[in-house]
């Protein structure tokens, strides 16, 4: 594996190995000295063309805990805001002799394009509404810690599927790991052409959360992306909550062993209520903590050995 651009880059063995290494990396978080020398002398640039707090900082911590030198470049306040092209920005950064490039960009496919221009390894940290493979890995890692092997488990992904890049990566990875997946959303937020996609990839779709909920081993609630809601996707927030929110009543109908995930940031009271977000079944904070371990695992596997 030279780059990580899509969850589809990962075979089942690759994914399991990344998750296993993440377990070893997770131990480091509980140590007094949170440092491993594995990437000493390597330089990683976090190149973020979109705002992000948790992804950028978890990549930064992951790199630093592995002893890499980490530099953050954000579009705001850089030459990008002066009109420099993606290619020139990337080539300029790469000319400084870096080993790895973690990139977030609003255009789907940008990280793939970047691999054509530079020798450094490239990790996709979110491209448009396309993919976010490390988020899918950390979701799978977190679910595994509570549910064990995901083979045969049923995961419901609920909410704003149209605008979410988390969905595609999660769907691919969960299928690779053998889980059953059901996508649940109101018709207006279900991606167009989902039927053919579902048939090809072997997952189910539903407009009825109450029907899917009791059978789910995990529910992944997605954020309603208010900033992208320029069209009338649902009449009122209240109506969305009634149809698709993880409310106290729905929480009660969840199987006792089932877990709740949310990639964050949450709109409390809209897609998820405080009862559900703070319940014992919620793994939302575990996901944040797993983010660092999973990104350490990815950086280690891409940069740790000889090429």
């Amino acid at each position: 594996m030279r780059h990580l651009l899509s969850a589809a880059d990962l075979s089942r063995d690759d994914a399991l190995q990344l998750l296993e290494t993440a377990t070893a990396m997770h131990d480091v978080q509980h140590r007094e000295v949170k440092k491993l020398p594995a990437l000493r002398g390597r330089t990683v640039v976090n190149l973020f063309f979109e705002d992000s707090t948790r992804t950028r900082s978890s990549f930064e911590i992951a790199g630093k805990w592995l002893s890499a030198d980490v530099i953050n470049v954000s579009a705001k306040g850089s030459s990008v805001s002066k009109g420099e092209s993606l290619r020139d920005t990337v080539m300029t950064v790469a000319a400084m002799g870096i080993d790895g490039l973690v990139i977030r960009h609003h255009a789907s496919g940008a990280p793939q394009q970047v691999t054509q221009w530079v020798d450094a390894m490239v990790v996709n940290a979110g491209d448009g509404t396309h993919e976010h493979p490390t988020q899918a890995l950390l979701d799978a890692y977190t679910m595994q810690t509570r549910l064990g092997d995901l083979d045969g488990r049923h995961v419901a992904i609920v909410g704003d599927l149209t605008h979410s890049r988390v969905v595609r990566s999660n769907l691919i990875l969960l299928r690779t790991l053998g889980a059953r997946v059901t996508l649940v959303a109101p018709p207006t937020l279900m991606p167009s052409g989902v039927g053919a996609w579902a048939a090809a990839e072997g997952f189910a779709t539903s407009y009825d959360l109450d029907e899917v909920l009791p059978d789910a081993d995990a529910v992944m609630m997605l954020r309603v992306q208010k900033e992208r809601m320029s069209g009338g996707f649902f009449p009122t927030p209240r109506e969305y909550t009634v149809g698709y929110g993880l409310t106290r009543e729905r929480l009660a109908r969840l199987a006792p062993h089932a877990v709740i995930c949310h990639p964050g940031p949450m709109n409390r009271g809209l897609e998820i209520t405080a009862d559900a977000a703070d319940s014992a079944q919620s793994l939302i904070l575990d996901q944040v903590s797993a983010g660092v371990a999973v990104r350490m695992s990815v950086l280690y596997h891409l940069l740790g050995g000889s090429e």
Partner: protein
Amino acid sequence: MTRPDLQHSPQQAQPLGRTVLSSTDISRALRRIAHEIVEHNKGTDDLVVLGIPTRGNVLADRLVALLAQIEGTQVPVGSLDVTMYRDDLRRQPVRAAAATRIPTDGIDDKIVVLVDDVLYSGRTVRAALDALGDLGRPRAVRLAVLVDRGHRELPIRADHVGKNLPTAKAERVAVRLVEHDGGVDQVRIAGGADDHETGEQA
């Protein structure tokens, strides 16, 4: 002439070389090491036994069981993965990392006994000492190995050795332990001049 019924016997499936430690030799060596540890430590107070994956873990568990037999106390046991601390990471394909398990009381002010199967260049032990430094500050660190085959590249020595085994660099020492490899416990030496030596002692 080979008997047809022996053509696919397990013995033929074994790697080339000769057995230098049998199952009995291994258990005798471990028992002696356990006694040495107790004697040197004047008991088992403050001891922590840490295996270096993967076969070091098996040996560490066995040593702790022997210490329990000898002294009637349960010595905390754990596992110390040194993958990230190796100085050859950049020269080889990525190695999978294993988990590190440290007993709940930690290793501060404890006497840590590191356990590995083979001591060779000393680089694994160096990596283990670096890893320990990130986990705490033991009062002392001791090293127990089943086989010391020489060829040290660093100033490191073992405190407890099951067998000193002079080898050529071209030779390969293969340790098999039931818990990890199945079959029977044994240490074999192969390669170098032994490539031509297929006669078995088993």
